[in-house]
């Protein structure tokens, strides 16, 4: 434990590392917040194409969909009821449309071929529509005298759009993915600690590491202790970031804070192990390794939607495998599934993949480092 505490002390006193790993993401989050503050919900949301099968339709649903507005004059849905279910199914298979709705046995079915913002909006609308209609039917059957009160209450409520898209956050929820990507990026910044771990243990990386190498301390022990120290500090930083985003900037996450923290924990492990793995694979100076890890981390964060949101949708839609091996995407997706889908299984799948990747990274790092003699030091 002495090695762990000394390492922790070293990391805490390295102000450069602390800035990039802890302060910088908080600053970036603040800039996002300030920047997005100028964007209104209207500017973020476009009308969504919605297809309802002409042979399995429900007039009242179509009517409701056509009446929903983003603002007073901009409809939320562009409803198309001109095609049959078979035609729409074919279009879906051909990736010409993202989804369609049909009613069968009094059940509303929404078929999609992938996840995405438009699908989420449509699904949320349908969920809410179902809740309201179910409520009305239930009240009508059990307490018909209360029906008028219920309808009045519903009339006083916000529109569907606001219910679906606004929530308690004044900013559009779509922006949240930027904050999720920011958390993913902060976790990926743990890769710097990973590079530092290799730099201070691999003899050909620094004189200090060469010195440590000739001591009777087992390399595995050093790797674990250095890793745990980095994990402690970086995880602390990431928790601070999550709390800062959630409570100070009021960014909407899932209500389950514990799961968000868990995501951050696994993400931190992923970031550090990813950095150490790349650092043992790349030959050259620690500076070169840091540069390469930095570029890769930013690129992976970019693919997860940090800079351009559409990139994430593009990847998810066209190269889904990339989303499964990109730690940043896995992190973004985990948070995304908690918030948008409330899907625990999807969430845990992403997290489990990330955990497996982390194990692969750390084992790979150890295998490359163990009992090594070097070409030059």
């Amino acid at each position, binding site marked *: 434990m002495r*090695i762990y505490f000394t390492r922790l002390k*070293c990391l805490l006193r390295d102000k450069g590392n602390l800035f990039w790993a802890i302060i910088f993401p908080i600053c970036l989050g603040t800039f996002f917040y300030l920047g997005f503050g100028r964007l209104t919900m209207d500017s973020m949301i476009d009308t969504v194409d919605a297809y309802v099968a002409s042979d399995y339709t429900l007039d009242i649903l179509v009517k409701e969909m056509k009446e929903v507005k983003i603002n007073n004059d901009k409809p939320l849905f562009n409803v198309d009821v001109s095609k049959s279910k078979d035609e729409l199914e074919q279009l879906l298979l051909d990736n010409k449309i993202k989804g369609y709705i049909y009613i069968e046995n009094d059940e509303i079915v929404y078929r999609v071929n992938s996840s995405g913002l438009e699908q989420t909006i449509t699904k949320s609308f349908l969920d809410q529509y179902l809740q309201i209609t179910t409520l009305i039917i239930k009240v009508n059957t059990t307490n018909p005298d209360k029906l008028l009160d219920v309808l009045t209450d519903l009339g006083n409520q916000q529109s569907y759009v606001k219910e679906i898209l606004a929530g308690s956050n004044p900013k559009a929820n779509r922006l949240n993915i930027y904050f999720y990507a920011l958390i993913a990026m902060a976790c990926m910044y743990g890769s710097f600690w990973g590079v530092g771990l290799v730099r201070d243990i691999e003899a050909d990386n620094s*004189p200090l590491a060469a*010195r440590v*190498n*000739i*001591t*009777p301390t087992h390399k595995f022990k050093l790797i674990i202790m250095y890793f745990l120290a980095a994990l402690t500090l970086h995880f602390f930083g990431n928790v601070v970031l999550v709390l800062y985003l959630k409570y100070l900037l009021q960014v909407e996450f899932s209500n389950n804070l514990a799961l968000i923290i868990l995501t951050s924990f696994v993400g931190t492990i992923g970031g550090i192990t990813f950095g150490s793995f790349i650092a043992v694979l790349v030959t050259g100076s620690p500076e070169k390794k840091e540069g390469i890890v930095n570029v890769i981390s930013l690129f992976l964060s970019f693919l997860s939607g940090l800079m351009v949101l559409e990139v994430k949708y593009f990847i998810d839609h066209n190269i889904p495998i990339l989303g499964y091996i990109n730690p940043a995407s896995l992190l973004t997706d985990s948070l995304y599934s908690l918030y948008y889908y409330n899907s625990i299984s999807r969430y845990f799948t992403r997290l489990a993949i990330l955990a497996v990747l982390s194990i692969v990274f750390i084992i790979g790092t150890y295998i490359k480092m163990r009992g090594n003699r070097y070409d030059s030091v």
Partner: protein
Amino acid sequence: MITDKYFYHVVKGWVVEMIVKVENVSKTYKNGVKALQNLSFEVREGEIFGLLGPNGSGKTTTINCILALLKYEAGNIEIFGEQMTPERYDIKAQIGYVPQQVAVFNELTVEENIDYFCGLYVKDKTKRKALVDEAIDFVSLNDYRKFYPKKLSGGLLRRLNIACGIAHKPRLIILDEPTVAVDPQSRNKILEGIMTLNKQGATIIYTSHYMEEVEQICSYIVIMDKGQVVSHGTKEKLKAMITLGETIEITLPNRNEAYLELFRKLPNVLDCFYKDRILVVKSGKGQTNVPNVLQLMQEHNINYENIYSSLPTLNDVFLEITGKELRD
């Protein structure tokens, strides 16, 4: 007679343990540079073993091979009679290493640095504290215990570097050019310290390109050049191997090329040349040539500012063997 492999040697009737044995080691770097070529030598217990050679001669590569840090394509290295590999933690536990470059944590104070490195060898906290205090005393860094390395001068930093390598009281201490870029005061302190460590029982391997240091402290010397041993032995033996017996340096008011011929005609003179205004006369073994030189100068009315005679140095040994100076 004990003949347990190379582990024991008998010197003057005493059994002396072989601490390090380097046998036919060859190392070529990826860029094609042949750093070591069939290098062999032995270090015995209680020695201050000097590895002397110019920069790039392969001293540090040799040390790194001994410590199992570097791969080498041929040869064998044993420490304490055992094959040295990166996994031999039992052997590593008995070695102290002071690298050429200062290798300490900038984020830790002097005391914390020594404690950290000592702790990689010594687990017992009380024992470690005593060892750390002793090491701090040893390198005279008591006034700088709470200083961070960045606040230390070059000399103090070198002393910290040494303290980190010796605090655990190792049986074998390897110092790789520990006095590079060190002021004379710190250098003397370091050299005295090394001799003290040796007196306390540690075997020392000391690399340097400063022949004076090696001459001053080493009991056995290996001279290296281009990755090979060019000569080895005690300093007396090394000096006895060469033909040079004396070097006389005469500082003249003006350089006069005609004098060279005069001095070359003196008995037993091997060579005569100018170094700026200094006329250098090198003589072979035997009686000193100083009286002959003085007489010649008197006969030819040669004025001089001063005259200085010296016995051969290790630089002369190196020069005679390789044809170049150690400092080249």
